């Protein structure tokens, strides 16, 4: 069976717009949430977000790319440039027809779509919008496949290319899609990850009425409080991460640095409610157990769990139950953390950022903390690594994701050599 190695990592995240800055920020436990600066958030219930201080030109984008690409595409391209450089692949010498792209996003070009809409509808007054004044690039915002095509074009990748858009599990699912392309022999290298730039008025407005986002506007820097007794919703974030996935044997043969391999990936649906979660965590635990079986992992093999940990009460209870259901007593013995406490919840992008965090956790032997967790919630009684990062050997890391639509996803990364060799 073909196996998938991770040989390159690139990240654009709030608090750290390169891989190293991102990791340093996580290990330091620094929260990057703040009062929204992109527009005046005064009329919104939730006025906080984790914004990226991102300079696309400094990240290696060309001016013409900056002009035509919405911000989320810029994030992915910047992360892809960093990841490909990190992998040591010399693309000019590679067979481009064997290089695929699989990227995720939940809401795609919503920011550009909204900005253009405001212009062509005369500030929201006209239903029959005026087509004469629309940006020539607006179609790439309507249809988020532009995310994948732009990255394929930049690297001349001629293998399969796709965007996966399963809401807030898009990041894990896109990397899962890339992993399956390698397993099935459809590609040897996949540039895979996800990105999002949804900090826009319409996105903030749509989460207000359902009280999904935090209204802790006076304490913006500590508003994201997963697993804390005083949490009151998630904090919107933005950013992206891209991994270079590579067939393991090939990666070893070229002497690449293998961060780890993907040892399991699975998804389930709760088939229950678009936004609601049952407290038993059943379907998420099924996804975790499926991923564990693929890697032949016992619960005791799991050294660290990077939780979805969005900071809604519903999620935290659901997820705690799911982890216990899947790992049994072992769930109490290992560090679990939510980096959304620091980088916010970038919807479709965050799953990929969390996979990057897991790979770096294995690499550095550090579990990043859950920031702002000062008052534990009696309903959430696991070890969520409060406030301070923890040094420990991590051979196997589990990441979970949960999203609107009922989607539940799990992915497991294992240190190269930490897995049983296939017969």
């Amino acid at each position, binding site marked *: *069976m073909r196996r998938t190695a991770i040989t390159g990592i690139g990240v654009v995240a709030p608090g750290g717009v390169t891989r190293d800055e991102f990791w340093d920020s996580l290990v330091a436990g620094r929260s990057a949430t703040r009062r929204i600066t992109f527009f005046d958030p005064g*009329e919104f219930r939730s006025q906080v977000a984790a914004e990226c201080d991102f300079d696309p030109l400094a990240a290696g984008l060309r001016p013409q790319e900056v002009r035509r690409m919405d911000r989320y595409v810029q994030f992915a391209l910047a992360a892809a440039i960093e990841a490909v450089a990190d992998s040591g692949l010399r693309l000019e010498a590679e067979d481009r*027809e064997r290089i695929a792209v699989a990227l995720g996003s*939940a809401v795609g070009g919503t920011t550009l779509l909204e900005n*253009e*809409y405001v212009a*062509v*509808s005369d*500030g*929201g007054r006209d*239903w*029959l*919008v005026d087509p004469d004044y*629309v940006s020539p690039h607006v*179609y*790439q915002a*309507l*249809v988020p*496949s532009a995310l*994948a*095509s*732009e990255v*394929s*074009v930049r*690297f*001349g990748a*001629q*293998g399969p*290319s*796709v*965007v*996966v*858009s*399963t809401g807030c599990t898009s990041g894990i*699912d896109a990397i899962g*899609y890339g992993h399956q392309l390698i397993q*099935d022999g*459809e590609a040897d290298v996949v540039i895979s990850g996800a990105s999002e730039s949804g900090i826009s008025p*319409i996105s*903030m*407005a*749509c989460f*207000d*009425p*359902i009280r999904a986002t935090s209204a802790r506007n006076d304490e913006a820097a500590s508003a994201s409080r997963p697993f804390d007794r005083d949490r009151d919703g998630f904090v919107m974030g933005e950013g992206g991460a891209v991994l270079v996935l590579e067939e393991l044997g090939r990666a070893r043969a070229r002497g690449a640095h293998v961060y780890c391999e993907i040892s399991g*990936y699975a*998804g*389930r*649906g*709760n*088939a229950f*409610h*678009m936004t609601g979660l049952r407290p038993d965590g059943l*379907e998420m635990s*099924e996804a975790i157990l499926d*991923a564990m079986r693929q890697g032949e992992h016992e619960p005791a093999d799991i050294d660290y769990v990077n939780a979805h940990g969005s900071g809604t009460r519903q999620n935290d209870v659901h997820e705690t139950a799911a982890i216990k259901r899947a790992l049994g007593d072992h769930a109490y013995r290992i560090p679990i953390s939510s980096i959304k406490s620091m980088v916010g919840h970038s919807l479709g992008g965050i799953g990929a950022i969390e996979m990057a965090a897991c790979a770096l956790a294995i690499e550095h032997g550090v579990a990043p903390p859950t920031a702002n967790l000062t008052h534990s919630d009696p309903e959430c009684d696991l070890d969520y690594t409060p406030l301070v990062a923890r040094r420990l050997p991590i051979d196997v890391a589990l990441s979970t994701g949960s*999203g609107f*639509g*009922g*989607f539940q996803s799990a992915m497991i990364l294992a240190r190269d050599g930490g897995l049983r060799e296939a017969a």
Partner: protein
Amino acid sequence: MITSTPRGGRRAVISGVGVVAPNGIGTGPWWSATTAGTSGIGRITRFDPSRYATRFAGEVNAFDAGDYVERRLRMQTDRWTWIGLAATGMALDDADFRPAEHDPYSMSVITASSSGGNEFGQVEIQKLWSKGAGHVGAYQSIAWFYAATTGQISIRYGMKGASGVVVSEGAGGLDALAHGRRAVLRGVDTVVSGGVEAPISPYALTCQMATGRLSSVADAAAYRPFDERASGYVPGEGGAILLVEELDAARRRGGPAIYGEILGYGATHDGHHPWAPPPDARQLARAIELALRDARIDAREVDVVFADGAGSRPWDELEAQALHAALGAHAAVVPVAVPKTMTGRLYAGGASLDVAAALFSMRHGVIPPAVHVERPDAGLGLDIVRGASRAADVRTALVVARGYGGFNSALVLRRTTDFDRTNDPDPED
């Protein structure tokens, strides 16, 4: 208990088809119209199109969502999701598949989407900007995003298997089916797949027009792929939902005839330019070659090609070149069908509907005509089926699809012989 590891011996077949198309709702009316060459394209009625250069589209005007979706759910969802739920119900009925009788984890929903819940989104964004933040409704967060239809299908039918949503514009319908097949190879028995689209709203149309690929000819016959007068395409709404099953599971279940097998798939990207045509047809040809190789068949076994049919000269020429490169001499003689001339291009729904048409061509031994293609470009060297439908013994069909931005996909379908699920899909295998 499913362990999602790929395994051999599992085969993906299509056992149910649900269609909501501009020229017919339900497979019966749609196939009758399609084989009769009846187009569903007309002047846009959903809003006044006078100020838009593109005034014609394939609308599903007879579609009454109230027939398929209860009022409470209609309030929470876009027309795109209504069409998806309607087509899903039809596909399940067609296969006589009753989800409640099956293990929830053995059923997945993997669809294509391209532009999400357009009209719903425009209504809410207009409220935000004209009235203020407090006027945005509670359902915007679940109605507009690209995964909304998949989520609603999963919830309505209790399907808890690995789900997915793929976006690759017009190639998405094939990519979703291929991803559905990946799920089947990994242990899921049933996948609701395919795709639908509802892009005929003022802002969504404005976005589409920005590509410069839509026809501005104010005529219901404006979309003429492979024709000397090709002037761009006409957009449309609708599509098809297809029920994919693992072959043995479908046999065990019993029930009506299986349509055919997903025998091969290939996907590539031009990797050339974010919107301009590539310098040659190599990557589209390679997608076709990969699909044939995956299907383990020779090009000469292809009995019909359902073409992408972009409807503009450079793209039509590239597709013809790709067919000649991938099929060799057979490209000049194999019938090429373009039934989307009767619906317009449906984006995520387009290739899904072409797959439905391919399956019906196999079952009924008839290839539908392309309409409005009156002066086919002889230089392309293709046998476009036009004028009237053509009787043909169709055992193997090739469906080609492209997505804006350089996506190329191809799917090979193989007829299930005798329409008897107790037999092998084809004894000649």
